[in-house]
Structure formats: structure tokens, C-alpha cells
């Protein structure tokens, strides 16, 4: 198998994830895009592990570590999403503008 096949598939998945993060308005769907990007990175790591025949298996081990970090990220991210839903009543990322830089403090104290 040519090495660039898995690498190109990984690039494709990463680009699809980027598109999902940019275009989706629901925060949970944005997190799905992030998961796609992390999976693309894993595919790259595993492909290069197989290519280099790494005796330390650095690629596969790092892929495992990335999976663990993705699990931690999705747990925290969904906790934040649920908190936003509790305070705002919706999770549309386009309407969350409390942290935007403004001339005068337009948002009232909560």
C-alpha cells in the first residue's frame, strides 16, 4: 500500500472536521467535528508507526494518548455545553457573544 493513501485519508477527515467545526451552529455538533479531527491525527500517527516499524511503538502509544485526551476533552466540553444550556436555554454558538470585545459593557451583570 502506498504510504500516501492513509495520509490523504487522514487529511480528508481533518478537512471534513474543520468544515464541521466552522459550519455547525449546535455546540454538540461542533464537538463532533473536533472528534473527527482528532481521529484524523490518530490515523496519521498509526500510519507512520507502521511505516517506520518503530520498536518503541511511539505512534500507536501516542494514538492511545490522543484517545485519552479526546475522552477528557469531550467530557469537559459537554459539561460546558450543558452549563451553557442551563444558563441560556440554547446552545447555538452563533448567539454566544458575552465574551466579545465591546466599547462599553453592554451585558448586564448576571
Amino acid at each position: 500500500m502506498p504510504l500516501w493513501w492513509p495520509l490523504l485519508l487522514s487529511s480528508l477527515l481533518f478537512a471534513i472536521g474543520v468544515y464541521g467545526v466552522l459550519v455547525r451552529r449546535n455546540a454538540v455538533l461542533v464537538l463532533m467535528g473536533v472528534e473527527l479531527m482528532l481521529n484524523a491525527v490518530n490515523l496519521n500517527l498509526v500510519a507512520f508507526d507502521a511505516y517506520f516499524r518503530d520498536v518503541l511503538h511511539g505512534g500507536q502509544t501516542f494514538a492511545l494518548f490522543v484517545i485519552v485526551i479526546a475522552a477528557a476533552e469531550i467530557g469537559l466540553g459537554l459539561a460546558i455545553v450543558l452549563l451553557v444550556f442551563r444558563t441560556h436555554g440554547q446552545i447555538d454558538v452563533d448567539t454566544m457573544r458575552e465574551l466579545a470585545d465591546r466599547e462599553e459593557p453592554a451585558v448586564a451583570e448576571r
Partner: protein
Amino acid sequence: MTVVEVLFLLLGLVAAGSALLVVTTRTMVHAALWLVVTLGAVAGIFLLLAAEFVAWVQILIYVGAVVVLLLFALMLTKAPTGPQPDLDARRALPAVAVAGLVLAVLGTTVVAGFHGVELDLDGAVVGSAQTTGATIFQQWVLPFEVLSVLLLAALVGAIVLSRGTGRRGGE
């Protein structure tokens, strides 16, 4: 064309197609279910690339835990089950442009950089549980322990965030 190559092409097509459906479908629950198909296909590719343990961990953690978490989040945020016309941003063209640019840059880089390089999978050391475990607990044990602290921090953070604001004592 060998069996491995055919299988890789099929799984790659499934992964790319279902990933496209994840980011384009109008029904939120379907997006989570298509994500299962994508992650499963990528797990199959991991198996083809001699990363057996990573593939099973992918199935266990991603398909088993992460997608279930996502589905629970969709339910807890009262996501409508029917098709939604306004799931995407109004102007999708910049997103398409940026994603296309990312794909063009990354794709040309890997194809130009590794064109003609052959990935030889015959006789590769399969990353079984034994191999991976021995590697992690011999060479990578310090990052492993650091990751356990990270997971603990994420656990505590998620609990603190989801406890809510109203019931905190003393405030």
C-alpha cells in the same frame, strides 16, 4: 492490488462518506450515529495498519463512551429529533473555502512528500495488547502517569461544572 489495499479503499470510502454525512446531515441524532460508522471504519483501518490494540480502544472509548456521551448531551439539551433546517451557519461558503484550503495544503504536502513510498505491512509487528502494554509500561510510563493526572483533573472539572451554580454552599 492486494486484499489489504482493497479493504483499505473500501474502509476509507466508508469513513470519508460517513464523515461527510456527520457534518452535513440535518438530523442531529443521525450525525451522532454516522459518527459511529466513521469511527468504526477508522478502527478497521487501524486493524489493517497492524495497530490491533488501538483499534479495540477506539471501539471501546470512541464508539462506546464518546458517542454515548454525545447522544446524552443531545438529549439533555432537548435537541429536536426531526430534521432541522437551521443547523448550519447561514454563510457556509467561507467554511467550505477554509476546509478546501486545509485539504489542498495537507493533501499536496503528503502526496508530494511521500509519493512512491511504499508502506510495507508484511511481517509488521502487530501492536497487540501484550506489545502495547509492554511498551507503555516500559518506555512511556511517565506520560502515562501524567495522563492519569489529566484524567483526574478533567473528572473533577466536569463534576464542578455540572454541579450547577445555585446550590453551592456559602455563596
